[in-house]
């Protein structure tokens, strides 16, 4: 296995009296897709939020590219999220007032690209996700499955080192869901991005290289890819 881009050891997080993570470990390499599975409420999303620096764990260490995530300032962490991480969630992530191409260009504009340069870089991603014809439509005018493809294009447009996807196909039928997974994992492998994929769906998880299972805030790593 190649070197890990992101590792976590002994993560703990408690909300009030609810232990969401109770000593979770994680590791992922460049170009690798890891499925995070487990029952509802087991701590999958909390793990993803901690790994992405959105939520700070109460204990444990997260290392990204040789840096300790907890040692960074809030501003440094948001900069990291903008430039090196990509995100895909189940619903409502596109900005409704912007067209699809503007949505995909948005993270590039936030990292300092001009409007023209950002949209020029965004277009190939819409093409790759097979939704180039929707470039000038707004999210309200396209289907959920199409919106999810635009969201994947947006997550990949900044050439992130890690893509965090929480139930990215949760709202799609299986044919669309699988196509989105195929496009996402293909693109991620081609760009050597790591993908942390939270899913309930075994058929979606089967697109990953391996899986870990979260139960009661603990992680168990299952068989690695053959």
């Amino acid at each position, binding site marked *: 296995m190649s070197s890990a881009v992101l590792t976590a050891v002994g993560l703990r997080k408690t909300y009030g009296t609810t232990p969401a993570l109770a000593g979770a470990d994680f590791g992922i390499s460049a170009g690798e897709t890891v499925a995070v599975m487990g029952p509802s409420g087991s701590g999958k999303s909390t793990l993803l939020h901690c790994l992405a620096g959105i939520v700070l764990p109460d204990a444990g260490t997260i290392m990204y590219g040789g840096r300790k995530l907890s040692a960074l300032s809030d501003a440094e962490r948001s900069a990291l999220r903008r430039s090196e991480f990509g995100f895909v969630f189940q619903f409502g992530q596109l900005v409704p007032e912007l067209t699809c191409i503007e949505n995909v260009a948005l993270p590039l504009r936030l990292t300092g690209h001009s409007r023209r340069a950002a949209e020029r870089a965004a277009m190939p991603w819409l093409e790759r996700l097979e939704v180039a014809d929707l470039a000038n439509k707004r999210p309200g005018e396209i289907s959920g499955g199409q919106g999810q493809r635009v969201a994947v294009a947006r997550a990949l447009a900044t050439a992130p080192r890690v893509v965090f996807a929480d139930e990215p196909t949760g709202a799609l039928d299986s044919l669309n869901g699988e196509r989105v997974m195929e496009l996402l994992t293909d693109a991620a492998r081609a760009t050597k991005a790591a993908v942390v994929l939270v899913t309930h769906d*075994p058929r979606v998880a*089967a697109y990953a290289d391996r899986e870990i299972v979260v139960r009661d805030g603990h992680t168990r790593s299952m068989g690695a890819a053959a």
Partner: protein
Amino acid sequence: MRHTTHLLYTLNVYTVCIVLRMTISHTLLGFLESGPCHGYDLKHSYDQRFGNDRPLHYGQVYSTLSRLLKRGLVEVEGMEPGGGPERKRYAITEAGVTDVTQWLVTPEKPDSYLQSTLYTKVVLAILTGRDAAKLLDAQRAEHLRLMRELTRRKTGGDLADQLICDHALFHLEADLRWLELTTARIDRLSAEVRS
């Protein structure tokens, strides 16, 4: 232990053979509906569409054809000089067409899976004080490993590959969901099994 394994294996192979034989004869009949042909052509049509990693042997083709001939479902339409089964051209009969139709319109009996080996293993593990959760996890990993393999094969394949792999994937998914549910209920099951 070795005996049981061997018996199971034999049983398994035996069942597979019977099922395969039944579908092979109907499949060959179905091919013949679009026109008479030689055993050679039938073998190739079969391998191309349904063979996957298991092409038919010529022996299977000719023994199937001779059974169909005996039952009046096919007839020899022409023979090139020299004799031997490979020279014969076979055609489907009226009775043959009826037989294929009957087979196609009769629904397959859904498997009830009531004699699940997995269930037996889980209960035995509990009864003998072994770690049933670990067993379930190992099975889960094995299932997902195969699902990944089929998914890879599917994404690289044509529509026929996709349909075949999807069929297997949906069944594996059902097993996997059962494994998850059973894992979640393992404490209750242990209490019941031990009481």
